[in-house]
């Protein structure tokens, strides 16, 4: 028999009390870890999405820059009001290493002639976006398909597909994990101009810089080009992050309340346990247990409740992370693709530490009560 064994036996002596108090801790642990997971996962997902766009700066037509950038990130289409001449001017700006022009449109495709978004891209596009895994330059009459379209139409490489009345050969199909791009048809920019019946127009320009540390300076130089609106990925990242801050504050507020409730749960369980065991505690004191030994046992009890509850809550948060991720995403504008609640080891450790500390703090009053229990209480009961 040791202190830990004694404490565990005592905890499981009142299963209903243990379940009730551990449950409050579990709920607090679940919410804490989910909040941390959102904090971390949202940033990771957003960074990954921004990185995936393959540019440090986006040049877009005049208008709401973040709406346009968000549309680009999520695979939607925007108008085409940028002259290709502006792209050439952007390429000549000091600090710019590479540019790629994109025109976006929508036309019927396939046998059912269902409307799909297509991107007309130049020869630099796939080289600037290696994440797409398309290691080629599209020539006229060649297309690369997003996997959703390919699977939806039961198409594969080598098949042909009519888009906007023009016949194309499928030369590449994107991997299914490229979710934002999987409902897009990529084609040569000349083909896109022909389908859209426009000439030398672009929807956006992807711009890479020589030195990422000088992105802001390069963006300022690009802004001097008339009719071009410039958004750095950092600006966009911070703006979209701002959308999530409201949700984060709401979750943190709920978190504080839930942690308080968990603390009260532990407090009540321990007060009840101590008050019903005064004689027993007195007996242990009479057989030579010191005040510190009894307070230590009481603290072990509260750590036990904290640990059992928080481990259960962590498991629950881990299991429900995908569901919670979808739930939170449904309420967030411009939420990045993929799982935005990601549970990592550090946040698990921090959550366990917080809940155990809360349990110990909640046990202070019962511990004082234990410390005040005199050995004579065994005799007087």
């Amino acid at each position: 028999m040791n202190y830990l064994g004694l404490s565990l036996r005592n905890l499981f002596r009142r299963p209903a009390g243990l379940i009730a108090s551990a449950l409050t801790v579990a709920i607090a642990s679940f919410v804490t870890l989910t909040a941390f997971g959102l904090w971390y996962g949202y940033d990771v997902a957003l960074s990954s999405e921004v990185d995936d766009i393959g540019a440090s700066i986006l040049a877009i037509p005049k208008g709401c820059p973040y709406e346009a950038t968000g549309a680009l990130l999520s695979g939607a289409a925007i108008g085409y009001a940028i002259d290709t001449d502006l792209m050439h001017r952007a390429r000549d700006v000091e600090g710019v290493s590479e540019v790629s022009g994109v025109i976006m449109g929508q036309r019927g495709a396939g046998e059912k002639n269902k409307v799909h978004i297509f991107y007309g891209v130049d020869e630099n596009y796939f080289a600037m976006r290696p994440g797409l895994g398309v290691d080629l330059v599209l020539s006229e009459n060649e297309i690369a398909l997003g996997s959703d379209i390919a699977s939806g139409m039961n198409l594969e490489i080598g098949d042909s597909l009519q888009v906007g009345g023009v016949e194309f050969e499928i030369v590449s199909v994107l991997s299914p994990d490229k979710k934002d791009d999987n409902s897009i048809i990529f084609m040569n920019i000349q083909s896109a101009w022909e389908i859209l019946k426009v000439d030398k127009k672009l929807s956006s320009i992807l711009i890479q810089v020589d030195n990422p540390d000088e992105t802001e300076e390069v963006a300022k130089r690009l802004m001097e080009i008339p009719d071009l609106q410039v958004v750095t990925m950092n600006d966009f990242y911070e703006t979209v992050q701002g959308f999530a801050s409201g949700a984060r504050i709401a979750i943190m507020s709920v978190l504080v309340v839930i942690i308080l409730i968990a603390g009260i749960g532990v407090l009540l369980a321990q007060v009840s346990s101590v008050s019903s065991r005064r004689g027993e505690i007195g007996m242990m004191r009479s057989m030579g247990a010191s005040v510190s030994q009894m307070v230590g046992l009481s603290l072990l009890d509260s750590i036990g409740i904290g640990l059992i509850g928080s481990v259960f809550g962590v498991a629950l948060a881990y299991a429900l992370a995908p569901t919670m991720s979808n739930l939170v995403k449904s309420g967030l504008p411009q939420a990045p693709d993929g799982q935005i609640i990601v549970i990592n080891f550090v946040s698990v450790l921090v959550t366990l530490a917080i809940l155990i500390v809360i349990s110990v703090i909640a046990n202070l009053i019962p511990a004082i009560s234990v410390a005040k229990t005199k050995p004579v209480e065994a005799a007087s009961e």
Partner: protein
Amino acid sequence: MNDTAMRVNSLVKTYTRGSETIRAVDGVSLDIDSGEMLAIMGRSGAGKTSLLSCIGLLEGFDSGKLSVLGHDMSDLTEAKRTINRRSMLGFVFQRFFLLPTLTAYENVSLPFLFSGKRANKERVLSLLETVGLSERIYHKPSQMSGGEMQRVAIARALALDPPIIIADEPTGNLDSKNADKMFALFEDLANKGKTIIIATHSKSLADRCHRVVELSDGRKVRDEKN
């Protein structure tokens, strides 16, 4: 019976209830020899439990002197009382206070845990055999009768081999047959040199002790050898 196990001199213990001060122990003096079996009698509220609590170092007292096994125990801090209690005294109460989740063996081992000593398995088994429970080692309190639980409590009191056993109404929750068995155990312990101090209401059991002290209103009103 030779050395003095306990010397109590003009001991006073008061309690305050509201504005009223109650002298629960009012100037009691007595010497208790080693190996003596002493019964403390008196009606409810006479001061038996208060006297036992003071001489058992369960709590302090207001005035007077107390020495246990030759050591002065007056004016001790709670921490020092705990240390002395651990090494000198064993307790048996009317309520057994066995931990319900522990087996008989584990309950008897508890004092070792609090004294920081490794539980001596042979000693625990031998104590359970002494109290006639060698067949009940792995039984929990819920699986034992009242008499058996009280015998586990006695074994627990003896775990660290204290020279003095203090028992407060140890037969209060037992039938006469079990009470008789337990008294026989105390007699056996006294014969082996332990000092036994028992508070009891039972005259027949008190008559089996070497000596009877009677209290009334906190004062010693009788002190006779049997």
